[in-house]
């Protein structure tokens, strides 16, 4: 049983406790949306989940085991989309994505599928420096589709996307969910995900 569980988490950034007593439980096919004002710790929580930060207190468990102990096995199961697009401007769209596909041992088919899904196939030869902010973000998001990560960690994934692309993102998230994947996302837009759990950070804490 794939379950991600947070128990009584607290996070320290600099000398400020960003949040404390945060807990949740996420099973297959479930979505958790993080809400709260700027600086309430949404990004920090996602970076905790990605393993970049270590919690000040509390535990993060993946299948009942601490994510720090799981190490690479846990890293394999997550995909993280942050504020930075991780796009090399001098390489083409396809070369950019091919690198991530190769890094994760993905197939050429997965790469084509991801390019098609986010409507980048026509731009494949274009150097990424010529992409608009929205297109660059779509290239970033297509990284999610080249591999089979169970848990998606999305930090404001809809930034600079137009309405049509936001719908595509919603579709991708819905499909991921339907396949038993899990999503933790911080977003201000309504991505039309029915039955998503919500976690409010800042002010009142906890579920």
């Amino acid at each position: 049983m794939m379950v991600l569980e947070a128990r009584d988490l607290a996070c320290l950034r600099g000398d400020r406790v960003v949040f404390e007593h945060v807990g949740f439980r996420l099973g297959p096919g479930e979505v958790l949306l993080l809400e709260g004002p700027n600086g309430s710790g949404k990004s920090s929580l996602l970076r905790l989940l990605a393993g970049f930060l270590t919690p000040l207190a509390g535990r993060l468990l993946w299948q009942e085991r601490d994510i720090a102990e799981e190490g690479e096995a846990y890293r394999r199961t997550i995909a993280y989309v942050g504020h930075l697009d991780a796009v090399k401007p001098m390489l083409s769209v396809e070369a950019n994505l091919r690198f991530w596909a190769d890094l994760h041992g993905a197939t050429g088919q997965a790469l084509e599928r991801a390019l098609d899904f986010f409507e980048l196939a026509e731009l494949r030869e274009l150097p990424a420096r010529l992409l608009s902010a929205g297109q660059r973000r779509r290239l970033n998001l297509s990284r999610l589709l080249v591999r089979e990560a169970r848990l998606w960690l999305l930090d404001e994934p809809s930034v600079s996307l137009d309405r049509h692309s936001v719908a595509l993102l919603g579709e991708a998230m819905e499909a991921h969910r339907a396949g038993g994947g899990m999503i933790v996302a911080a977003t201000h837009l309504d991505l039309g995900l029915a039955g998503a759990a919500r976690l409010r950070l800042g002010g009142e804490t906890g579920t």
Partner: protein
Amino acid sequence: MRAFLAILRRDMAVALAQGAATLLSVAFFVVTITLFPLGVGPDPATLARISSGVLWVAALLSVLLSLDRLFQADHEDGSLEQIGLGPLPLELVVLAKVLAHWLSTGLPLILAAPVLALLLNMPVSGLPVLLLAMALGTPILSLIGAIGAALTLGVRRGGVLLSLIVLPLYIPVLIFGVAAVDASISGLGARPHLLILAAMLAPSLVLAPLAAGASIRLALE
């Protein structure tokens, strides 16, 4: 292995696409060295005596000049954190990136060195050992440099700090690199010096990726 090659291939593609950056450090190497005959005077005997030292110091500085782009660009555009989430341990990521750095910086320097050595009137008998010593020494420069580059990730104006960290650590390479060439020119045999360089390369190959990997992990917090 596939992930290792993916990083190596990408870094080489980036280096080629940014040909200017690679050319820049070779150009720096050439220009610095051509300054010496102008500064010291054209006396062939003097130039021959200082040639090995000049070549090594210039090589050290050229490598140093190119270090800041080793991890910094990937750190700024978010690639480094994504690579950190990948299947490859950061230590091997460092090794792949160092290899790409050496291929795009160290190797061109080695290729340019013989011409510049002749320019400085180095006896031809010293050339083979010079190439051998540089082949052993420049990877050490890239490896040690990677530690400095990783430690100064995210530091504003990290370049100066990077030089202060890295240059003192380059001294042993400089000493034995120069000694090897001088020994072979004076007919003493360069073998011991080359062996010492090799003995420095071996642990650097293991220890530098460990140290750099650990500091990258800190920088990703």
